[in-house]
């Protein structure tokens, strides 16, 4: 690691790998850094040496990551893996911990490509041992081939069906699939169908997964109106409301999923402006056509700025890289424009399916804003929905004051798992839109940092007093 780079890229998913490959090919001094030990991000996790021999289990879309990873491996970008990125300041000072030592370095341009995370699913019992997100179950499958027999899959969204399908292909028995997609979503998604038809193969793929799951004899229940997970010290059962009647399925593992949302913490802490997207029910980075944010020199590419999927992320990574190269005088305007044009067209095409998917798999209110007062919203500080509503009635006006009232959002995750629920909960209680609330102010370090590492931090000469 050097003290300074032309371009620093955070994240080695499709956006980050594509950006690094382009940027270093044009002579930029590039750093790319990620928490994970291997490249691929979540979507292509384990792509460089996948241990699952049967390629039909993870499917063709997964192996699309291979050529991207190969091109990246051939590039001369400085790759730092297994590192914690604990801050990117508005002055593009980047804080990185690696092997027990903290470093501060700077870059002329920073591309934040932190990808997606799963939307929180705050229902009663969601914090019990034995409950995990479907995405976490997939991580264990992709990275170590670990599976759990007789788990219940509950929720909505393509990823839920995909992972269940991957389980099916791997021959792992599934106890049940509880589909929480509201029936009314189909009607609301209908106007967006024409755009989605450009991606007919994707839609057919999804239908294939669901059809295979249903015809396999797996219990597949649709139209679920509510869910709760019960158990004393760990998960014992999942209960579901169907046509006004509660039912119970005994299970010790429950996989929840209701879509993915941008992982915004690092960009927000850097001062990048975000806005609430009501269609997607999450924060979106406010960026221009190049992915550039309001903070000079910081851009956002891939799902971290707004969900578009792996292919879109790759195009966004390329576009952001060309703009960074142009800004640092590594390519001329015309070269930039010629090179990004195909990517821009492909990106527009790629995004056409999104409005349909957003409407079709929009999670219902009761799964986003807990109705039961005892449901935990902030996992780190164990703050319940009831406690938050009580604070609002005492005059707590927004997520930042809520920290003072309840410590909600003040744990090590800094709101990563609660800020969406908290924002919606407060907005609903005050009958305003989320955009009218103050956003949660994120405090560095964005990821926990050992005090001993901080104490040994090499002082930047420019700031030494």
């Amino acid at each position: 690691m050097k003290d300074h780079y032309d371009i620093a890229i955070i994240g080695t998913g499709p956006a980050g790998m594509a950006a690094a490959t382009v940027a270093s090919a044009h002579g930029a001094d590039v750093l790319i850094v990620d928490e994970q030990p291997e490249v691929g991000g979540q979507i292509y996790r384990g792509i460089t040496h996948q241990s699952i021999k049967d390629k039909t289990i993870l499917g063709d879309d997964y192996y699309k990551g291979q050529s991207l990873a190969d091109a990246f491996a051939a590039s001369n970008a400085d790759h730092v893996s297994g590192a914690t990125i604990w801050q990117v300041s508005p002055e593009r000072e980047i804080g990185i911990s690696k092997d027990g030592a903290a470093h501060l370095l700077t870059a002329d341009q920073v591309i934040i490509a932190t990808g997606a995370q799963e939307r929180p699913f705050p229902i009663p019992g969601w914090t019990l041992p034995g409950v995990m997100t479907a995405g976490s179950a997939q991580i264990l499958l992709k990275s170590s081939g670990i599976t759990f027999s007789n788990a219940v899959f509950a929720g909505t969204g393509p990823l839920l069906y995909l992972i269940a399908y991957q389980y099916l292909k791997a021959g792992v028995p599934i106890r049940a699939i509880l589909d929480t997609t509201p029936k009314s979503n189909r009607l609301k998604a209908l106007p967006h169908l024409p755009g989605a038809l450009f991606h007919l193969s994707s839609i057919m793929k999804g239908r294939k997964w669901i059809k295979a799951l249903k015809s396999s004899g797996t219990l597949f229940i649709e139209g679920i109106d509510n869910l709760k997970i019960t158990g004393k010290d760990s998960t014992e059962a999942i209960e579901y409301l169907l046509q006004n009647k509660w039912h119970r399925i005994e299970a010790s593992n429950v996989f929840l999923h209701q879509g993915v949302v941008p992982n915004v913490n690092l960009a927000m802490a850097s001062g990048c402006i975000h806005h609430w997207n009501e269609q997607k029910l999450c924060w979106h980075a406010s960026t221009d056509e190049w992915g550039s944010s309001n903070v000079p020199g910081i851009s956002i590419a891939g799902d971290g700025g707004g969900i578009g999927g792996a292919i879109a992320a790759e195009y966004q990574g390329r576009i952001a890289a060309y703009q960074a190269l142009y800004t640092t005088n590594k390519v001329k305007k015309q070269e930039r424009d010629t090179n990004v044009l195909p990517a821009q067209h492909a990106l527009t095409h790629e995004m056409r399916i999104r409005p349909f998917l957003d409407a079709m798999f929009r999670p219902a209110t009761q799964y986003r804003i807990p109705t039961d007062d005892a449901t935990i919203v902030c996992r780190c500080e164990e703050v319940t929905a009831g406690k938050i509503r009580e604070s609002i009635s005492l005059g707590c006006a927004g997520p930042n004051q809520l920290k003072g009232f309840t410590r909600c959002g003040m744990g090590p995750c800094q709101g990563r798992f609660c800020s969406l629920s908290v924002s919606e909960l407060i907005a609903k209680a005050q009958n305003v839109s989320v955009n009218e609330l103050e956003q949660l102010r994120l405090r560095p370090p964005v990821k926990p940092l050992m005090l001993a590492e901080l104490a040994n931090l090499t002082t930047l000469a420019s700031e030494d007093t």
Partner: protein
Amino acid sequence: MSTSKQTADAIIVGGGLHGCATALYLAMRGVNCAVLEKDYVGRHASGVNAGGVRRLGRALPEVPLADTALSIWRNIEDLIDDDCGFKSLGQVKVAENNAELSALKNRAKTVQDIGFLHEEIIDQKQLRELLPAVASHCIGGLYVNGDGHANPYRTVTAFKRKAISMGVRIFEKTPVTEIVRHGKNWQVKSPSKKIEAPIIVNCAGAWGGSIAAQLGDYAPVEAQALMLMITARMPHFVKPVVGSQGRTLSFKQFDNGTVMMGGAYQGSAEPEQNNTHLSFNGLAKNARAATAIFPIMRQATIVRSWAGIEGVMPDNIPVIGAGSADGVYHAFGFSAHGFALGPLVGKIITDLIDGGDIELPIDAFRIRRFSQNKDI
């Protein structure tokens, strides 16, 4: 937006701890008050400071005030129906060598000479009993029994709630844009309202200098971003609040196990944007100070750091007292140690407005000390 016109007996500019406390004491004497706060109550230094309630190491003019303030803190629940998380577990300043210890001895004597006995020297054995986790090279310290800390945001919110229950009107998101004389009244304008009163109290913290200027007074307050950081939960290892003679350090562990560290390490403040930037080099120095005094801190994990925007005066003591024009009072610029004094200062300003006797000496805090020395 239409501007509504209102009147009051007294207008308080700034909804921090000093503003809310002043409003509460005034309301208890039947004075009709309005508080104008540009953001929300406790948004800046009042809500995010380290929460120290200390007499230890105060500037000499502040010693009598800090001593009286503590008696309010001991009964804070009687005043505002909330104990504010006040814990009286002592404060200690650690000496790492003989030079530091003798400086502390001199300090203790100076405080005794003005008639206060709360600061006492402790030896290495007593220090170890008080702080079992302290580094073995520390040889003694200066200790004040009865000092402690409270939860700042909870405190300022409790003052706000109690003030409202006593009839105080608190207007948040109401920045003061202009103050003009209107007959015998001060008329205060904000985008959404106009309000006037014969009395105006400037409790605007880091923004107190510009409010003072509009009231005909001069005070060179500097906005500073004083950084703090907090760890993930740790096993309990320290009860008192700990400082250091040789390093700048403020250190305390809360009931939930988290440890907060500060020591007036500065980031940079942008008061017009309500913005602060942190300096990780400063935080690194803070981390070195903490690990030197408490080796156990090498195992700690920092989860958050932040800075509040605080008003600091050139002589590091606040402005408290009447202004030059009729009906003008000031309480701002507490220079990073105003939290403990807040409740008392509310009472002092109320006594001044009420024309009552002020038993405590506050002349050192007069605002005219700056204009007297100012080169014009």
